[in-house]
């Protein structure tokens, strides 16, 4: 009897493993919580893409709920999310500021001309310094910033219609009410 129990051990161990794997399927390993959530958005002041004489700083949008979208013309996944952004801009759902990350300005402008420009304005971050302050490690990323200039949410990877409906829109509505 006792010996027979030993032979059940491999099966038991496997079933525990399978349970964890099943749990793991529901989790997203790429979803890394950002330490910046709930913190004030790091300040910066950078020239605008279409009018380099003017600059933009997050405090320019104080009092509004807005999105900071990190993009680049060399980024393939940005093309994937771009129609979603264009649609949001068309609906005037939320102001979107683009952070043009490690990109050549001519390429960036040509890209916007080709695919449409959903941005209220784009900010040039040629050397990626602003990206470092925001903990950007892959393009695209999108930050939701509230009226007090606090980061409320970070979307890693392309902004999908699903992510908009399920996460961003409810959060934006709640922020606007409260």
């Amino acid at each position: 009897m006792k010996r027979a129990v030993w032979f059940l051990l491999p099966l038991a161990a496997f079933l525990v493993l399978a349970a964890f794997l099943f749990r793991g399927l529901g989790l997203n390993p790429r979803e890394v919580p950002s330490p910046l959530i709930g913190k004030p958005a790091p300040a910066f002041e950078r020239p605008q893409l279409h009018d380099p004489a003017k600059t933009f700083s997050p405090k320019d949008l104080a009092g509004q709920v807005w999105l900071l979208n990190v993009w680049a013309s060399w980024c393939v996944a940005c093309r994937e999310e771009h129609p979603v952004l264009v649609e949001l801009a068309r609906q005037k759902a939320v102001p979107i500021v683009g952070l043009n990350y490690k990109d050549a300005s001519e390429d960036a402008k040509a890209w916007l001309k080709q695919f449409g420009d959903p941005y209220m304005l784009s900010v040039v971050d040629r050397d990626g310094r602003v990206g470092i302050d925001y903990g950007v490690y892959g393009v695209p990323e999108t930050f939701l910033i509230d009226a007090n200039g606090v980061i409320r949410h970070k979307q890693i990877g392309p902004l999908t219609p699903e992510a908009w409906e399920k996460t961003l829109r409810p959060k934006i509505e709640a922020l606007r009410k409260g």
Partner: protein
Amino acid sequence: MIPEIGHFALILALLLGLMKGTLPLIGAARRIPAYMAVARPASHGQFLFVAIAFGCLMWSFMSNDFSVLNVAEHANSQLPLQYKIAATWGSHEGSMLLWVLMLSAWSVAVAGFSRHLPEEMVARVLGVQGILSVGFLLFILATSNPFERLFPPAPDGRDLNPLLQDAGMVLHPPMLYMGYVGFSVAFSFAIAALLGGKLDATWARWSRPWTTVAWCFLTGGIALGSWWAYKELGWGGWWFWDPVENASFMPWLVGTALIHSLAVTEKRGSFKSWTVLLAIFAFSLSLLGTFLVRSGVLTSVHAFATDPERGVFILGFLVIVIGGSLALYAWRAPKIGLGGRFAPVSRESTLLANNVLLVVACASVLLGTLYPLVLDSLDLGKISVGPPYFDTVFAPIMAPLVFLVGVGPLMRWKEASVPDLLVRLRWALGVSLAVALILPFVMGSWKPLVAFGLFLAIWVFAATMVGIRERLRHAPKGTKLARLAREPRGYWGMVLAHLGVAVFIVGVTLVNGYQNERDVRMEIGDTVTLNGYTFKFEGAKSITGPNYRGARGTVDVSKDGRFIEKLYPEKRIYNVQQMPMTEAAIDSGILGDLYVSLGEPVGDRGAWAVRVYSKPFINWIWGGCVLMMIGGFLAISDRRYRLAVRREPELGAAHGAAA
């Protein structure tokens, strides 16, 4: 039309798989010869239809049929032909099809080389293979149909991931899958034996060559993958403890344990239930590897398309196959006898230690791979486990194992004596200690880890030589060469594989101890010196390839003022995916590599960020793997297997008559 033929052929293969997975098993249980006789023709038919499907997919790639979704996503009209062919298995769907193709090919091989086995055994083995094929074919047809059409057709394709456009990557997946899937044969033999209730030395003898072949392919596949990463990723590393690499390494570790424990079961009748368990584990880990890679539960540098629906399917299949076989094990294994006894110091005990160490090593890799997932599912936070964990845990487990590689083959079965071993091995020990202490000085600087690694490598080499000498002394008379030739190939296979371990360790030790790298900004005419070699940057020119454009740098290498050669590292941007790729230029040699890769252009005056590496003895790493592989193939070409094929038909016939 062609894709539809492929799709239809897959459905037919599934139907044949259903037959193959049921009738022979029922036939074997109820002793109905007609049912059992289905196994072989069903295997042949299934292979034929899977091969047709695979051919159809390959045809779609070669003929630029962008109305097929899979082709549109993974190829492009500009893609060179050899990569179009390789793109057949470059996608998730295609690689699963390759998996099934391999599985059915292994079945055909078993059907062909098993004429000497009892009919029930063959029926059960092929039946289990049939069940496995049904699982995978259902998976393909239900969640990953490679023939899905795209309407309207794409004007051109999105191109194959540039990382995969490399000779190493063309061969790596088929080799690796041959190994992964090959373990399914050992698994099927184990399940068949459990079902039949006859677990004896003959079972071990039958599954041994199959296990060894699978192991050889897996060894080759892993080595190719590592060589590809070294060449193509541009970091000069050869192993990253990435989850996908670990997924292939775990079955290798357990497979290595299985090869050794099968030897004990065959020769001494011991370890029977343990060997069966290892056979189940080796294939289960191959399946788990597939799950980890295909389901997206873990992040990896190898970002494959991932999909939770597929994950749920594979996990369900995993639970049925692995859970089912472990349940069968728990039910049947307690009835297996214990086999021959052995003393604490004996060849059996060293092989037991070998098994324990390999399994512990595998468990620690599994732990490191799944730890982030476990923590995350318990809501304990997100972490990632990296090379520091694996290096720290792995080396202390491997060191005693390698030491045993030297001692084990010299031990007697049943009982060996320590003083006797010490006398026989005193020269080997002395030589390896002396060389380990002195050689690092010759290499430039004495480092304890280098000395230790060299000691292990030379120990394995010297002890193996002692073993050969002793065997020759005990062999009957004849010239030395005649006596060498008379030793069985199985023995030489082992010798070669163990020497491969020594060569591998030399490579790892010297690369880790003496590699050097410099990451510098170089203007035209600048030089950098590394390990005595001077690299002079001659500038970079723009180039255009078939499906990419980019820049090719020229670097002159010289030593002591004497010109050696020019190296041409490239930076490529692939047209379709706009993905920058580093093509390192490597001067490869037996004593080491010089490795130059281009970073980014800096400033406007033609300066570039350039990385130069010196990698002493790195090719010994893959050389060692090749030796292990050749050793394995040599072992299965042993006379006794060929004799067994010829001798046992009569036995099989007698057996059939008696039944």
